[in-house]
């Protein structure tokens, strides 16, 4: 695939591995589509340089301050407290800024493969904004914990994500208390019949979703023990801090990761066939570093990557190859991605993946060079097509097979939206010229003919965006 022009591979590189071709892109990469993908992995990580975006610690500190001011809100249920504090008023503008920034970046980036990888990991470590407590933090998780590590090691990525306040709050670990910790003793002495205990939510989802996978061979006892090992992984500046400070260890910096030693279940732990000595924070970190490199984790992630980039039913040979690269490189992600790119299966079946609504929007914007509008207005398409940014509704993230997205209602909405876009762009774009530039070797005769015979420029654009090969990648 060197020096010779390969319009078919170019279309696969730009549309399947990237976020959809922009006019001119295929011509630029068609002599070396593989090289174009690999080059994207070499430079700096895909950080978002947008000075208007606030660090999550500052956002969270503002929220905590609000809570302090309104002590009257008490400590009832989270949603109610959040509403009483007008937390959405603090968080919603932050969410809009974050969602818009990632949208604009996806539309404009010259390294679309890196951006797709970022989105892949963001979805793998999903934190969903339907939980108000993370509405203003979910975008920051991607920006602060994921982007800097997309071209690093999975171990670094995993640690950054599990320590991030958005994840700790989303899966309730910030308040998880070991049953034999100092805090538990304090609560049982003073807590009016209350009992402190662990919350196993984060521990379970780390094992099931983030690392080993549901068939990764762990037991309920592993989940419970792991939850005890990471009890104390919390967020600084919580409002009950003064009470907690009496237990020693302070209250941490507001809004930042804080190891609350008084919550931590003391003692050595045994899980997943290994023993971990009592090292406070270091215990949880050691376990994470260990499971990041387990063969089950390698296979789980290799399968997910192959499903995302190759086919709904990932070919076994490709999964094996990616798994091996994971283990050989000690989860050095560029080596893993290289194994993926070098899998011939990824280049054999064009249009094997039905685009998600977000893919469809990103690729349409890139294809037609649709100008972005006011933030909220620009983001409406995601809601209309059924995939609001960062709102998968579950720690499992958005599903990743065609059957999850190709419902009849979803398809009709997509076509209707394509038509709205086409009307807006009207004669400013020429579908006949664009089609080969966007779809390269994957453009079908049927689509080419339909576009040629369209009765207006806008209708031709609708047909281009609605075509089977543009619906898929």
């Amino acid at each position, binding site marked *: 695939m060197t020096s010779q022009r390969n319009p078919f591979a170019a279309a696969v590189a730009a549309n399947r591995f990237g976020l959809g071709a922009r006019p001119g892109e295929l011509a630029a990469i068609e002599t070396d589509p593989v090289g174009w993908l690999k080059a994207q992995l070499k430079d700096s990580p895909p950080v978002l340089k947008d000075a208007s975006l606030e660090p999550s610690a500052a956002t969270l500190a503002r929220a905590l301050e609000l809570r302090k001011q309104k002590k009257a809100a008490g400590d009832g249920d*989270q949603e109610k407290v959040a509403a009483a504090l007008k937390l959405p008023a603090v968080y919603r503008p932050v969410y809009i800024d974050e969602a818009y920034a990632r949208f604009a970046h996806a539309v404009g980036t010259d390294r679309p493969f890196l951006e797709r990888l970022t989105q892949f990991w963001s979805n793998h470590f999903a934190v969903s904004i339907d939980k108000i407590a993370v509405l203003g933090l979910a975008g920051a998780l991607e920006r602060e914990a994921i982007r800097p590590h997309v071209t690093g090691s999975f171990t670094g990525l995993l640690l950054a994500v599990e320590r991030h306040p958005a994840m700790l709050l989303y899966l309730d670990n910030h*308040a998880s208390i070991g049953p034999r910790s100092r805090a538990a003793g304090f609560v049982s002495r003073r807590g009016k019949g209350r009992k402190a205990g662990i*919350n196993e939510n984060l521990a379970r989802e780390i094992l099931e979703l983030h690392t080993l996978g549901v068939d990764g061979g762990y037991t309920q006892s592993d*989940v419970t023990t792991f939850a005890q090992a990471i009890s104390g992984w919390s967020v600084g500046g919580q409002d009950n801090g003064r009470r907690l400070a009496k237990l020693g260890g302070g209250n941490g910096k507001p809004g930042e990761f804080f190891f609350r030693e008084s919550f931590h279940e003391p003692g050595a732990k045994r899980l997943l066939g290994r023993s971990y000595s009592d090292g406070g924070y270091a215990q949880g970190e050691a376990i994470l570093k260990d499971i990041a490199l387990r063969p089950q984790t390698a296979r789980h992630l290799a399968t997910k990557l192959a499903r995302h980039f190759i086919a709904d039913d990932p070919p076994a040979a490709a999964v094996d190859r990616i798994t091996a690269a994971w283990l050989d490189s000690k989860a050095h992600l560029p080596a893993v991605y290289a194994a993926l790119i070098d899998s011939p299966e990824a280049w054999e079946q064009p249009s094997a993946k039905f685009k998600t609504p977000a893919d469809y929007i990103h690729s349409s914007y890139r294809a037609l060079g649709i100008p972005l509008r006011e933030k909220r207005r620009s983001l409406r398409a995601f809601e209309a097509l059924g995939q609001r940014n960062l709102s998968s509704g579950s720690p499992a993230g958005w599903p990743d097979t065609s059957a999850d997205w190709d419902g009849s*209602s*979803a*398809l009709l909405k997509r076509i209707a939206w394509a038509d709205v876009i086409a009307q807006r762009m009207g004669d400013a774009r020429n579908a006949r010229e664009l089609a080969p530039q966007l779809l390269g070797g994957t453009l079908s005769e049927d689509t080419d003919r339909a576009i040629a015979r*369209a009765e207006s420029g806008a209708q031709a654009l609708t*047909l281009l965006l609605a075509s089977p090969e543009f619906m898929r990648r």
Partner: protein
Amino acid sequence: MTNKLSRRGFLEASLFAGASTLTASRLAFANAPTDSRFVFVLLRGALDGLSAVPPVGDPDYASLRGQIALAKSGPGAALPLEGPFGLHPALEFLHRSYLAKELTVLHAIASPYRERSHFDAQNVLESGDPRPHGSASGWINRALAALPAGKSHESGVALGANVPLAMRGPAAVASWSPTRIAALDEATLARVTDLYARDPVLSQRLAEALESDSIASEAQAAANADPEAAMTTNENVVAQDAREKRNYNGRYVETARAAAGFLKREDGPRVAMFDTTGWDTHANEGGAQGQLALRLRGLDAALAALKDSLGPVWRKTAVLVATEFGRTAAINGTRGTDHGTAAAAFLLGGAVAGGRVLADWPGLARANLHENRDLKPTRDLRTVMKGVLRDHLGVSGAALDTQVFPDSAAVRALDHLMRA
């Protein structure tokens, strides 16, 4: 003319107004295999059955549940059912249905899945296969396919943009959801249809979409054509609006009404499904008030809206409300509950022989808990599904034991769930 008017009305109701008259074949739902209606409501995230249907008379209940335990009497008390059981006070409509003998409450019930992953558990619950990811189609769809003539037309509708696993499979099932995108002109739509001619998946999906859309807009047209009905609807809508705004998850009311719009048509689909989320109450679950109470109130309102919108068709309807698994018997360290095993489920409708709690109650004493932590499952959810599919929709026992629920001959359908 009528059509244009109806479509405008539809737009104003901010529902989809795609080219409804273009290809819609009026034959699609003709010769329906059954006159009975079935709705499946899936609660994703694991409903806490011990809060939804609290066993307030169980001696261990209050101590296990601590701050989130519901009271037997007094303010915020559970609504009384038979035996040790009560209903969460947010479930007022369900309680009225119980008193009217239109609700059967099922407890200590579970799918065959015994681990604690939401996603595998939902997969088992939806596929009907006891092994996670054992099947790429769902039990409802396969039941439809097993009905006489079930494959020849669309007999099911999924309320949502996409079709959930339980409804995927050989039988044609459409998805439908309202949208705010402007209408597509018919000439363009005709060309897209042509362009999909050689793409079997997209051409089928598009045909299904146009069919459902046509039904939805005709339902709207019918409502507009009947001034009296329209007036009632408007009044209902105003009163309903005020009520729903107070309800978290009021959006499910709209979904339930849309489901009813499809089901009440003579020539419409016979089976509908929708799902709701937000049941994963790991922290600050709340008791009579709080997070879970808000969601239960939303569910209760949606089910009430379904009955209201179905009108006389409610008499022919059975609704199964189920979740992937239950939650821990004891409260956890953050005033919530973690993933458990057995849960509660509801079977309601005008066709249901209700007014009962069906539970082989294992008790909450520590020795009786599953793995020392969860309510023990004493009934397989498939016994209920099979009973409903057999006695309500007329699916044959042989099909139920093999196609619909693979390798389930040993799991016997429950008798007498439906009115004779």
